[in-house]
């Protein structure tokens, strides 16, 4: 007699089950089960994983679910065929869409409507009442169910080890006989082995928001809810052998497998009765003709033919057409987009307009990205302007309908910090201890679980409770916690999507997504299209618009002049503030060393400053070979083909994976698994397994061990941040385009960049300073000239003048400014006119703070004085009358004070750089301006001071901190080694005005200061506002008895947060921190 477990709750019933679906299936296979069901609560989220695992183990998964009803007793539902599955999926969709995200509201009648073809098992009550009977309600419901489901209904019977099991089963069997509903044995499995019971208790605590100490009877009394062996189940039900037989009856009648789900492409993509392949060919050739006019290069013709044949072979035409359709819509709406991913850099995609990377410029082999052997679906991600992506998303929903298109889910997993917090809380640790524990986490390592790192936090690693917490945390990590929506992965189908998978509401309005994630749909062969958002595209589109308006240029991503030497020249000098991808400090110091001259150089530049190549220690070898300091050689003949483009040094993810295949004997599928296992920390054991296999394999094939280790390290780096060549190529195009705009139209570039904020590394202040450096005139915010956005005014010199917009002023809102603009029929001449335009006093104060009243002859202080009196503006009969008031004389503001307040209101000042006011004092300290560095000898000790722009401590740099500071003459790049960082931590993290002393180091154009010591000079900034004690009025009482310091520092100030004067150094940006 055989047995099939039919009631299995996995961890996709969030906070209920304590094992992964894979673990359940693997355990079942280990016990020799031929099939097992997965019944999560109102969800199919876990069944694909179970299905994949079952396939691998050669057993059968019965997709099923547990229907928890709002008005009835729960039912386990098993579809017997595809139609039944479709109905259940539709049922869950109904329940999902009716309520908010994460819930599913179902009623009995819903189930009755979708019941056809499914088998149902009623979940029995957990206990008998004091009369040793079931509550009458149960019997009543059973009768109702029986009348609907007829012979498809069963009653679940489980051994609960509660003392009265025999009575309980006896009663059940009585009922079963009386109502003619057969009994079926289940074990209500919550975890795959009894050891997981502790974790299950913890999950209960998290769910019930209590601690293990006060959870009480909310926990299970024993650990019997594990998957038992068939023999044990037979023994437990020896008195009811029929109940065991029924499991086989159900299992046999439920032959439906997820493999039967057929993904079908949408059909409305073709025109004029063409087949998808014909349509694609038609569009591709048509596009090719447009791109290359009539003289199609031979190379292109061959490439297109080749690719089309490949597409036909793999039957991907529909996929390309779907992407093309979305891109076409974006084009029409004038939304910029750019494709990337394995298939995106093909010639066909170029002809279809999906990408603008010209394949002639770039030796790309299609199969380099898609291999038919791996049979993995093509991958095209399309980036859209971040401000307008929603339009594209809504287009997709509209075109295909919400029943046919939905976003893929992402499974939010328990990460280490969250896991430790959850477990700690459930175990009743104090907030304090939990904080310490979680702050001891830096990396997910075995040492951490062994408690080595927690000793540093003053915790006792031998403490039993703590060890238990660590052990449970380790188990909990990787558990799914909730279903979120993917950033933009869409699944579009021909038929109803809910036929395939339940649809649910996303947290965001107007979004619906499916219950399965990327890996799940990959496994079932569904195709997804990533509709992503990219800030730089917004910026570029705005730049194109401005270029059209002011320079009458019709720019597109494709028609920007290519291979422009001036642009590469600028890039080589690292003049790249604001440019896509290559603006970071690390990139800027790489540029003069790598000296990109061609498009492919940019591809490498984008890819090289990444964890992968850095951890693999591949950067320096590449630079050396590029500069001819080292001969180009290959580890073996076999690798030459793979590594030729990058001078024998693996830089891209694809290369590292190919090495695993060619040199270490991995199969392509294994290499792919290797990549995946690196990305998720779930498969911890797998990583070590692969490490041994890779290094062993490579050494067997005659590669040096050291080289093999580096390749593995590199792969590890890609795991945390995978960046394949196919993506780098698409990004490189945007790098080039943004550089080109910056090079030729710095005014346009700065304006577009400011209007797309927040993005990138730099603050508006640096962008403005950079624009001024390129001789762009920048004009201040003004009530009579500014608009919400920054804009370009008439030409002043070589470029248009940039007028700052109201969006730069902190705290202003766009609709308030629309009132201002609609009231600005002619120039405003007084503050009361703005008041009449409907602006509130608070808004006027903000405008005064920004010094925006200059055009009506008021500086910020006089304006504020006027504004502050507007609360009792004359109304009704007296409207418009001026109130007579004594003139009050306010102290004049110095330019330094103005700069301080400019920073306070807009984070930048056009009047002067703050550091310029303290230059005299800095000179007394022998501090040099940053611009002097060029003439100072390498190796000299210099002192330099500036506002802190960026602090960066990349994980790949062994604790080294990179700081960029800025004075009125330019920026200085500082390098602080770990020991010094610990010593000067306070200064580095707190100072707004940082002074350092250190050794000047020059490498080509790149100048660094290797810091020896740091000082916080922020106090100097306080002096920017003049102290008025020098000219005290006559009222003063004789000062002989008072000691008045020029800059009073009142003890009260620490406590009472107030006046900008005292905390004024805080006005200056704190500097941004990056890891």
């Amino acid at each position, binding site marked *: 007699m055989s047995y099939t477990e039919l009631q299995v709750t996995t961890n996709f019933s969030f906070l209920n089950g304590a094992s992964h679906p894979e673990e359940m299936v693997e355990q079942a296979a280990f016990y020799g089960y031929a099939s097992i069901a997965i019944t999560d609560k109102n969800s199919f989220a876990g069944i694909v994983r179970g299905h994949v695992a079952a396939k691998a183990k050669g057993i059968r998964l019965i997709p099923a679910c547990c229907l928890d009803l709002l008005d009835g007793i729960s039912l386990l539902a098993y579809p017997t065929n595809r139609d039944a599955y479709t109905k259940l999926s539709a049922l869950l969709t109904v329940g999902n869409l009716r309520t908010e995200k994460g819930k599913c509201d179902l009623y009995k009648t819903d189930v009755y409507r979708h019941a056809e073809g499914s088998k149902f098992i009623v979940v029995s009550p957990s*206990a008998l009442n*004091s009369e040793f009977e079931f509550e009458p309600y149960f019997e009543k419901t059973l009768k109702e169910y029986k009348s609907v489901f007829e012979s498809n209904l069963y009653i679940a019977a489980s051994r609960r*080890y*509660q*003392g*009265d099991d025999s*009575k309980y089963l006896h009663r059940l069997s009585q009922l079963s006989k009386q109502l003619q509903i057969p009994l079926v044995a289940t074990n209500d499995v919550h975890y795959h082995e009894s050891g997981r*019971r502790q974790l299950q*208790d913890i999950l209960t605590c998290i769910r019930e928001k209590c601690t293990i*100490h006060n959870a*009480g*009877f909310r*926990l299970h*009394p*024993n*650990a019997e809810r594990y998957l038992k062996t068939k023999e044990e189940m037979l023994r437990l039900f020896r008195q009811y052998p029929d109940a065991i037989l029924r499991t086989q009856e159900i299992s046999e009648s439920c032959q439906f497998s997820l493999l039967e789900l057929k993904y079908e492409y949408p059909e409305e993509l073709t025109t004029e009765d063409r087949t998808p392949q014909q349509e694609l060919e038609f569009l591709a050739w048509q596009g090719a003709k447009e791109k290359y006019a009539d003289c199609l290069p031979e190379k292109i013709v061959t490439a297109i033919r080749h690719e089309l044949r490949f597409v036909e072979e793999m039957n991907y035409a529909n996929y390309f057409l779907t992407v093309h359709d979305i891109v076409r819509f974006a084009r029409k709406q004038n939304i910029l987009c750019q494709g990337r991913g394995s298939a995106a850099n093909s010639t066909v995609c170029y002809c279809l307009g999906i990408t603008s990377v010209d394949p002639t410029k770039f030796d790309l082999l299609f199969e380099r990205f898609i291999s038919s052997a791996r049979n993995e679906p093509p991958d095209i991600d399309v980036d859209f302007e971040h401000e307008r992506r929603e339009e594209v998303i809504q287009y997709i929903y509209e075109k295909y309908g919400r029943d046919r298109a939905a976003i893929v889910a992402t499974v939010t997993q328990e990460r280490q910090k969250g896991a430790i917090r959850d477990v700690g809380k459930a175990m009743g640790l104090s*907030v*304090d201890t939990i*904080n310490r524990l979680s702050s001891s986490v830096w990396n997910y390592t075995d040492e951490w679980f062994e408690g080595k790192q927690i000793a540093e936090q003053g915790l006792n690693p031998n403490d039993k409770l703590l060890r*238990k917490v660590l052990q449970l945390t380790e188990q909990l990590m990787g558990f799914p916690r909730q279903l979120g929506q993917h950033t933009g992965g869409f699944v579009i189908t021909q038929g109803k999507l809910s036929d395939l998978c339940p649809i649910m509401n996303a947290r965001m309005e107007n979004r619906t997504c499916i219950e399965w994630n990327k890996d799940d749909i990959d496994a079932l062969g569904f195709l997804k299209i990533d509709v992503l958002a990219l800030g730089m595209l917004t910026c570029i589109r705005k730049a194109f618009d401005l270029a059209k308006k002011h320079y009458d240029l019709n720019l597109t991503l494709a028609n920007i002049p290519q291979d422009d030497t001036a642009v590469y020249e600028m890039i080589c000098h690292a003049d790249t503030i604001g440019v896509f991808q290559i603006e970071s400090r690390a990139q800027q110091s790489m540029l003069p060393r790598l000296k990109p001259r061609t498009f492919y150089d940019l591809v490498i530049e984008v890819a090289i400053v990444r964890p992968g190549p850095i951890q693999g220690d591949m950067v320096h070898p590449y630079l050396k070979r590029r500069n001819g300091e080292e001969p180009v050689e290959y580890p073996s003949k076999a690798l030459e083909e793979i590594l030729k483009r990058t001078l024998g040094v693996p830089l891209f993810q694809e290369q590292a994976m190919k090495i695993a295949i060619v040199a270490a004997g991995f199969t392509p599928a294994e290499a792919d698994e290797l990549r995946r296992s690196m990305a998720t920390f779930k498969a911890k054991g797998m990583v070590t397994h692969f490490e041994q296999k890779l290094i062993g394999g490579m050494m067997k094939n005659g590669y040096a061990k050291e080289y093999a280790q580096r390749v593995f390290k590199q792969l590890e780096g890609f795991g945390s941040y995978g960046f394949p060549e196919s993506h780098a190529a698409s990004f490189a195009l945007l790098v080039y385009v943004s550089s080109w705009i910056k090079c030729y139209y710095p005014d346009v570039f700065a304006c577009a960049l400011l209007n797309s904020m927040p993005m990138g590394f730099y603050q508006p202040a640096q962008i403005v300073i950079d624009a001024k450096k390129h001789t762009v005139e920048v004009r201040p915010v003004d009530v009579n000239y500014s608009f919400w956005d920054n804009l370009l005014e008439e030409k002043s010199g070589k470029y248009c003048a940039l007028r700052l917009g109201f969006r730069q002023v902190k705290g202003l809102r766009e609709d308030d400014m629309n009132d201002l603009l609609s009231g600005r029929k002619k120039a405003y001449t007084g503050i009361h006119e703005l008041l009449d335009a409907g602006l509130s006093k608070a808004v006027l*104060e903000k405008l005064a703070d920004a010094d925006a009243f200059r055009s009506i002859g008021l500086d*910020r*202080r006089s304006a*504020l*004085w006027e504004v*502050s*009196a507007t*609360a009792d503006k004359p109304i009704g009969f007296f409207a418009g009358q001026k109130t007579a*008031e*004594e003139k*009050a004389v*306010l*102290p004049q*503001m110095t330019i330094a004070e103005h700069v301080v307040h400019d920073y306070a209101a807009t984070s930048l000042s056009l009047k002067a750089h703050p550091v310029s006011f303290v230059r005299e004092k800095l000179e007394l300290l022998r501090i040099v301006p940053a611009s002097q560095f060029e003439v100072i000898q390498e190796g000299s000790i210099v002192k330099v001071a500036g506002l802190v722009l960026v602090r960066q401590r990349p994980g790949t740099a062994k604790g080294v901190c990179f700081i960029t500071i800025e004075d009125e003459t330019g920026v200085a790049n500082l390098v602080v080694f770990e020991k010094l960082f610990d010593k000067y931590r*306070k200064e580095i*993290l*707190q100072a707004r005005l940082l002074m350092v002393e250190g050794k000047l180091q020059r490498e080509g154009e790149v100048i660094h200061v290797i810091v020896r010591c740091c000082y916080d000079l922020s106090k100097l900034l306080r002096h920017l506002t003049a102290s*008025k*004690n020098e000219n*005290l*009025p006559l*009222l*003063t*009482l004789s000062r002989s008895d*008072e*000691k*008045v*310091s020029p800059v*009073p520092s*009142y*003890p*009260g100030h*620490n*406590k*009472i*947060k*107030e*006046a*900008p*004067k005292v905390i004024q150094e805080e006005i200056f940006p704190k500097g941004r921190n990056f890891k």
Partner: protein
Amino acid sequence: MKISRRWSCILKKENVKPVDMHRRFVTIWFRHLKTDWISIRRPAFAKLPFVLTLSVHGKMVITSANALAEKQGINIGMALADARAIIPSLEYLDDKPEPSGKLLQSIAEYCIRFSPAVAVDPPDGLILEVTGCAHLWGGETDYLTLMINRFKGMGYDVRAAMADTIGAAWAISRFGQSQFVIESGQQKFALLHLPPASLRIDREVVELLHKLGLTQINDFIGIPLSVLRRRFGESLIKQLNQALGNEEEFILPVQLPATFEERLSCLEPIVNIAGIEIALRRLLEILCARLKMEDKGLRSASFKCYRVDGKIEQISIGTNRASHSIVHLFKLFELKLGTIEPALGIELFILEAAKVEEAPPVQEKLWKGTCGIENIKFLELMDRIAGKIGTANIHRYLPDEHYWPERSIKSASSVKEKSNTEWKTDKLRPIQLLSTPQHIEVTAPVPDYPPMNFRYKNKLHKIKKADGPERIEQEWWIQEGEHRDYYAVEDEDGNRYWLFRSGHYTGDKRNQWFIHGFFA
């Protein structure tokens, strides 16, 4: 207590009609009230930078920082994470909002020794009206210095100032540079160079004044009031006037809590029990009358007898429920009166109620249906039994939410304690549970079927009926180990027992079986 009552009478008169004499105020500012308090109680913290934090929207925000932390740049309102970036070793404790009020209150009560009219000025200040006090302490400067030194001696970092107005004293104590005793009538000059924040006005107004360049009171004191009012609102004018003394400001002084203590001195020393009884009864009458008037009752009291030879004889009682019943309390004392040795005689009796609780009058019921702990008579009986055999010998059990049988009951600490759970009745539980299970010899089919017979205290019991197993797993967070399989069995005599096997059946392990209880 009596003194302070008298003071308050005088104060009240004063408040009715301001006397035309200069009033004087002292304000005391505790710069690190909470952290100082912690350092005083936990000296280890005194030398460390540490902060108090509160979770605001899931972010740990600093609410207080001690002087050492502040010196290193840690400010209130900072996120803890930022602060720890600056001082990685920064200690932090949970800020409990509640104690600071109590703390301030208790310091205020302490200050009554300096002046009868002390008011709290949350979150971290005190205001004392000291009109006419200073000369008792050797002049104003000495008086103020004394106060400051007292607090410094305790470990509090304080600043204090004295002036004619609360406002001026407040400003000087927070923002003053040197002179902390402002002579009468000089407050205006003292205020001139202070920043607007010293006027106790809203932050927005302070910011506005600063933006306008009006960074000292001096800068705007000359501006016509109407102009100021129009821009900065009424509160600025009011605060300015109060600080300058143009407008009266009142404080609400703290009151000391009353104590329940009565004394009876005797003209002649009492030497016999009858005399002691009379004294006790007299004291009880007075005390209970007071308690009754205030709707209070006592939970514990002690009766002290001061003997002429200087020794003190004392007896104490406790009750389960706040009581002011003379009869009952007398009965409780009576049980112990015999222990008092009057020796040469007792000259003074003191009856002190150490613990007093609210005892609202109970509504009379038409029929007395209540029994158990709600019944006063029962409770009084319990008090008397406890007086005889000791409270430790009376037990009361409540259900506790544990599956593990030993932990499913807990003993209650008082009659008032209520269980947060109901007695569980869905499973059969023995009427008597052995505190430690005892080994038995058992014959049982494997692996988990009920036993057939067992030997307990050398008697063989043949099992006729049985139910089980009920498997109860260890509560692993308390203790790890084997689970138990419980069986309810009935032997041939009809007696029923609760047996269990510890762990799964294993062939090689003996002594797996235990008896744990008896059913009725």
